[in-house]
Structure formats: structure tokens, C-alpha cells
């Protein structure tokens, strides 16, 4: 069962800007097993998307990976040449993006966009590709697939486009699916449909899913394991139930607490004060220290390490590690 499909080790990604080089992702390590949904959560700007784009080497022009490995079935794909990496994209790792409407080419029929992938990777002929595309459209739960095949993206609703994106991602039977906020642009009822579909697909083909979101509700419902990021670093990772039951990192705690809960009855919502620091203005020491109520002097001086607590659990906090050490 637990075959590591994708493993990221010590990934550090930087951006060249006019002033200096900014580190958007620092020393991130995680893995995705077969048949598993791993959630990646964090506030806006915490480096979730950069992490996923680094995996596929689709960073914007000014971004580069300065360190680390991305192992896909034990091969480091960071060492591949352009051609080989292109062979992997779409066929081994597929990706779904946040905004389905803008992620489809507006001037090409959706069917053709679907066909491209299989013609390239599975060497389908036009006819085969078309049949396959229609089959995929059907699979993602769209009735009248032939009709949809011939439509342009603007003729689809948001939910339909996202389903097309999923069909496209899955059409070459990838091993890993990276979904970067796949439902943020959608409504709750449609979101429910799409998440349902992803779960279904995962179960059917036993793929590994890296689900990026900032919605803790989605994480709670979908994921097996969760990784929490803050300022480009992993601050905590755990099995989903552990994390929600017993969040260790003050950031995780704050995050979970500030989600409004139906029926909680409380009048004032707890919240995390302050704001995510700008990449160019990173505090020394723990990046969360300025917003942390429990911060001690050490937190402002020295950056804590990510401590392995038990086999599924990691946390990056002086308070926790001290407590842990004391406990140990």
C-alpha cells in the first residue's frame, strides 16, 4: 500500500527580483503515497503553489530551484533535460489549477485540448484520441459528452470546466495528481461535486493526490495527511485527524481556531494577529514569532528546526520541541 510515488526532499525555490533573490520555499520535504491524498495548507503567499510548480518545473521565468530533489518513482526529475521532463508532465504527474476558466485555452475546442495530451503521450491517433477524450468527458460525469467535446471553454460553466481539467489531467493515467486549489473558484455545491469526483478518481486508479488548498474544511474532508506551510516552510505535518484534534504549532492552532464554525455560538472569533511577513522582510528566527502569543526570546533569534515527533508527525516550533524534549 504505502508506495512512495512522489518524494520531495529539501526543496528550496528562489525568485530573482530586481532587488535581491527571494526564497519562496525553503527546505521543504514531503512525500505522497499511492492512493493517498496529502493536503498542503497555509495562508496566501505561504508557498503552496510555488512548491507544486517546482515539482513540475513550471516556475515562472525568474524562479529557480536552488536546492533539493524531486523524486518520481525514485528518479530525480530535477536532473532531467527539457525533453524528458516534458515526457513526464501530463503522463506521470498531472496538474489541475485553481481557476479552471482561465486554465483552458479560450480559442481551442475543449475536445481538442483533451486530445492533445493523449496524442502526445499515449501516441494515440486522432480517432483514438477523440474516442478517449469523449470517454473521459463521460467519466467525469458530464452528460452529452459529444456535445461538450465540440464546445469552447467559454461555453462551459465553472464546474464543467473544472471537470474537463480533471479529465485532461487524468487522461494519460498519471501516477500523481497535483491539484492546486481546484475548487477555490467554485461554489460550495459545485465544490462538493468536484471533490467527490477527485475522490472517486483516486479510488478508481489508485493515484496519489497532492491537494493544495487554504480551506481547512476541504482538508478535513478530503485528506489523509496534512502539511501546513508558513512563509515557505513546513511548520507542521500530521495525519488529518491528529492535526485537527491536537494541533501543535501555534500557527496551526490559530488557523483552525479562526475558521468560523457553524453552531459554535461564540460571538468573537479567535484570530491570528498581524500579517504574513513579506518575503523580502522576513524576520530572523521563527517566522511566526512576531504573530505568536507564546513566543519566547529564543523564537526571535533562532529559527526552529522541523522536528520529527512520531512517524507521521513533524513540527517546527521551539515551544513544542522544548516541551517534547522535556517529555522525552
Amino acid at each position, binding site marked *: 500500500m504505502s508506495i512512495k510515488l512522489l518524494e520531495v526532499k529539501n526543496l528550496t525555490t528562489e525568485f530573482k527580483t530586481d532587488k535581491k533573490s527571494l526564497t519562496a520555499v525553503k527546505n521543504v520535504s514531503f512525500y505522497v503515497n499511492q492512493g493517498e491524498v496529502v493536503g498542503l495548507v497555509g495562508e496566501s503567499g505561504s508557498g503552496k503553489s510555488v512548491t507544486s510548480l517546482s515539482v513540475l518545473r513550471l516556475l515562472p521565468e525568474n524562479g529557480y530551484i536552488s536546492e533539493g530533489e524531486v523524486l518520481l518513482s525514485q528518479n530525480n526529475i530535477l536532473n532531467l533535460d527539457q525533453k524528458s521532463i516534458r515526457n513526464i508532465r501530463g503522463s506521470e504527474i498531472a496538474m489541475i489549477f485553481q481557476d479552471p476558466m482561465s486554465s483552458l485555452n479560450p480559442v481551442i475546442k475543449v475536445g481538442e485540448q483533451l486530445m492533445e495530451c493523449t496524442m502526445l503521450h499515449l501516441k494515440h491517433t486522432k480517432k483514438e484520441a477523440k474516442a478517449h477524450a469523449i470517454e473521459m468527458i463521460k467519466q467525469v460525469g458530464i452528460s452529452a459528452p459529444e456535445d461538450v467535446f465540440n464546445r469552447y471553454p467559454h461555453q462551459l460553466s465553472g464546474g464543467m470546466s473544472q471537470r474537463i481539467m480533471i479529465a485532461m489531467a487524468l487522461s494519460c493515467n498519471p501516477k500523481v495528481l497535483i491539484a492546486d486549489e481546484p475548487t477555490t473558484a467554485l*461554489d460550495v*455545491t459545485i465544490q462538493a461535486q468536484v471533490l*467527490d469526483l477527485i475522490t472517486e478518481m483516486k479510488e478508481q486508479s489508485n493515484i496519489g493526490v497532492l491537494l493544495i488548498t487554504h480551506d*481547512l474544511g476541504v482538508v478535513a474532508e478530503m485528506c489523509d495527511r496534512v502539511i501546513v506551510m508558513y512563509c515557505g516552510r513546513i511548520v507542521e505535518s500530521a495525519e488529518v*485527524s491528529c492535526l485537527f484534534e491536537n494541533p501543535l504549532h501555534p500557527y496551526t492552532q490559530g488557523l*483552525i481556531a*479562526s*475558521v*468560523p464554525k457553524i453552531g459554535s455560538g461564540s460571538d468573537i472569533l479567535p484570530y491570528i494577529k498581524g500579517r*504574513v511577513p513579506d518575503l523580502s522582510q522576513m524576520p530572523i528566527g521563527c517566522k511566526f514569532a512576531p504573530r505568536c502569543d507564546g513566543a519566547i526570546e529564543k523564537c526571535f533569534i533562532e529559527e526552529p528546526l522541523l522536528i520529527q515527533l512520531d512517524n507521521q508527525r513533524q513540527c517546527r516550533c521551539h515551544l513544542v520541541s522544548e516541551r517534547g524534549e522535556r517529555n522525552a
Partner: protein
Amino acid sequence: MRETLVELKNVRKQFLASKKFMEEKKYVKAINGVSFEIYKGETLAIVGESGCGKSTTGRAINKLIDIDEGEVWFDHENITNYSSHMMKPVRSKMQMVFQDPYGSLNPRMKIRDIVSEPLLVHTNLSKKERYQKAKELLEIVGLNEGHLRRYAHEFSGGQRQRIGIARALTVNPKLIIADEPVSALDVSIQAQVINLFKELQREFHLTYLFISHDLSVVEHISDRIGVMYLGHLVEITAKEQLYKNPLHPYTQALLSAIPIADPAKKKKRIILKGDIPNPIDLPVGCPFNTRCMHVQDKCYKIVPQLQEAASGHKVACHLI
């Protein structure tokens, strides 16, 4: 009965869908016969999926759009046919806060000018007095004097939303129409802004029309909730009532679809089939008939009217 501040009577609005290349004009039916009241001092929330006409409803109250049919009453005045000139004093009594804190502030103006602009329009205060007032307001929403001379782009989303709120407060309005004021914000900031809304309401006795698509947020802030679907108000009632006893099948699906941030509480979700129809060609009969699991023949023929199902609980469904 409580005093009514705003009343919408059977309001309709449609937009020309695309103009340039049309032979036959097509219209987006944004709101189709919406009626409700907002009472003084309460928070009425409007929820619904994207494109269902929430913002259009908000705009109709502020007369940012001219409605096609129906009436809008504000503070016992029928403002339906007011010109923009006549709206000026009315607008000082109702202000808006917008969803997109990035887009709703003029990027070319300093914060103090943005915040004090309503004063420039509605009062004869001197520049100095206006800036003084702006400063006070910024302090109320948790920003400080040092921010006055900056431009909007120098602020984070949460801060910008505070600026927007400060601007809305400058002329002591009675009503604030908040059009998805927190949906663009991260959860941690969202919580702060929601708290601010509640605080201000208490302090200034404000009435809110709070538009949102997030039922968990709405639950925290509202007194009553109206649910919209495809330009129709399908259910409206007190908050507790809605969460306890949703009557409309759409409300039920909506409530069940909210992901709960607690893996322990895995519940049964109602997964609707199909997509929201295009508001250009609405389905005949009940607007929800394409996705409803209890659909009956009648639903394909007659548009259900909003009816009182229980005291203060109105719903538009043939099944009830």
C-alpha cells in the same frame, strides 16, 4: 414588529448579455422578483452561489443600477425613481463595502483622500477637518495615523478592507451594504474583519446587508438569512431557524455541502447533479428544477412564490 429600514418589493433587473454582435438581444435575468425587508439594527445576510444576483440586489438598493421593475424603499422613502442627484443625501445614509479590497480603492489616491472623500461630497468641512475625521476613523478600524499618506497598494488585504470600512463609516450611515467583504481574505484575517463588523455594529447601531456565499461566515454575523438562487429569493428566515430547519431543497444541499473543518464530523453530503443553469435562459417553472432531487411535474410549470411557512420563515417551494 420592528421598524423597517429597507424594503424591496418585487424587484427585477436584467442586463443586456452581449450587445455588439447580436441580432436578437439576449438578457441576463439577474434578479427576478425579489422582495424582502431589512429591519433597523439587524444584520440580514444574503447567501447564494456565484451569479445568483446577490450583488445586483445590493446595487439595486444603492441605486447603482436602475431596476426594471418593482420598488425600493429606504427609510420610508420610495427611492425607486430617484435621480443620482436626489440620491446624494440618501447615499450618505447608506454606504457600501465591497468584496475586492484590492479593486475598490482608487490606486491613485492617498488613503486619507479615499477615506475622507464622502465628507467632501456630503459635507462642507474644510480639508483639515476632513483629514482629522479620517484619522479618527482609521483609528477606530485599527489603523494608525502613519497610514494616512500611503497608497492602497501598500496595504495587505485585511488592512485594505478596514480602509473600505472606514470610508463607509465617515458619514455616519444607517445602513451598510457589505458585498462579500471577507471572501477575498485569508481565514485568519477574515476572522479579524468579521469581529470588526460586529464591534462597529454595536458601537454605531448599524444595520447591515451582508452578502456572502459562505454559510459559516454568515452564521457568525447575521440575524436573518436570505438564500438566493438564480435571481430568486428561495428562502428567508432567522439564522437559527435556517440552520436547524432548512426547508428549501437548495438550502438543504447548500448546508450539507459546506466542508466542516473537523474530520471527526464526517457527515452525509447531498451531492447535487448538474450545473447551475445559464441566467440567460432560465428554466421554466421553479428555477431549481434542473437540480432538485424532489422535483415534481408542477415544478416545471409554475414558479413557486415566496410564502410564509412558519412565523418569519418564508420559502419558495411547491413542496412546502
